[in-house]
């Protein structure tokens, strides 16, 4: 295995779980999340030369995932249909999974900027500056958007 392939294998090993959970939380659909992650890694391999700072690989992979997720979102059917599917999922889920199902459902009901910042905030260990960079927003916007997103999520979960 050459150097690039080894580097790529390390990315997959280290970041697959993070990306899959982020994609799942963004789309509300595990199968779609797996497709998105697959596409993300394929694109990452194709454009690996563009990554200059190996220490920023998680943010770089997330930006690729985000672009792919936006494309997925544009193609996504209206929310009502997905609510039906989530309800079915919830019905099949074990009781211990209820909280997680509620959270996934609530995330889907948030606006896209709110959903995105919460997913990245909860799933990654990025600093506010790295969050701003990953989301293409000003560093000063991160905290205010995070506060508004958290409040919206709390309201949806009945914890406000």
């Amino acid at each position: 295995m050459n150097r690039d392939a080894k580097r790529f294998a390390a990315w997959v090993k280290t970041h697959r779980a993070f990306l899959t959970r982020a994609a799942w939380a963004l789309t509300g659909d595990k199968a779609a999340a797996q497709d998105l992650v697959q596409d993300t890694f394929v694109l990452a391999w194709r454009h690996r030369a563009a990554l200059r700072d190996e220490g920023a690989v998680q943010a770089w992979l997330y930006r690729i995932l985000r672009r792919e997720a936006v494309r997925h979102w544009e193609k996504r059917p209206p929310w009502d249909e997905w609510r039906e599917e989530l309800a079915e999922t919830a019905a099949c889920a074990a009781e211990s999974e209820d909280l997680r199902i509620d959270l996934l459902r609530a995330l889907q009901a948030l606006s896209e900027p709110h959903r995105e910042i919460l997913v990245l905030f909860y799933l990654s260990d990025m600093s506010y500056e790295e969050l701003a960079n990953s989301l293409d927003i000003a560093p000063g916007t991160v905290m205010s958007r995070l506060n508004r997103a958290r409040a919206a999520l709390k309201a949806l979960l009945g914890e406000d």
Partner: protein
Amino acid sequence: MTPTDHEFDARMRALLRTLPVDGGAPIALPRRRFLRAAIAAAGGALLAGGAGGLGLAYAATPALVRAAAAHVREESGLRGEFAPLAPVRQALGLGPNAPFPGTLQLCKRCVVAGRPGWHVSVFLDGLGYVQIIALRETVDIPAGRGWWLGEHWQVLAQPHRDPLILLSPSAAALHEVARRLQS
């Protein structure tokens, strides 16, 4: 940020970070995919008996069919009804009470190359499995058939109906399901 926010964040973080992520299929490097595709195309060409067919299997297989093949491969072990059958029957062009074109193995929503659809798998006694991807939007994919990485495929594109992509390792099973869907 209040202590309540910290506690809330901790709970949400724990819930999201424990979303069950299975190993999944290993990510194949594109170069290896290409190599496999080239080998498969060469094999297909040899089987077809025409050297001129070398590479045609890759070139002639629409990207959406290739994406569908990759998708059904990922869900190859999955069985069950995860979606209401009525809209799926409608997407397949079947009447409300019409039987599926084989014993139903899997029925679930899916997304193929960013396009929403249904993944339906049916089994035909003595012939084998056929995977059907019923797309839920009109796409620019012509009717056709071919062979790709060990799978026979057929696109059923009909007016006033979203296209269906059929995949099966068995040409006979594929032909039979296509016949039943078009009858």
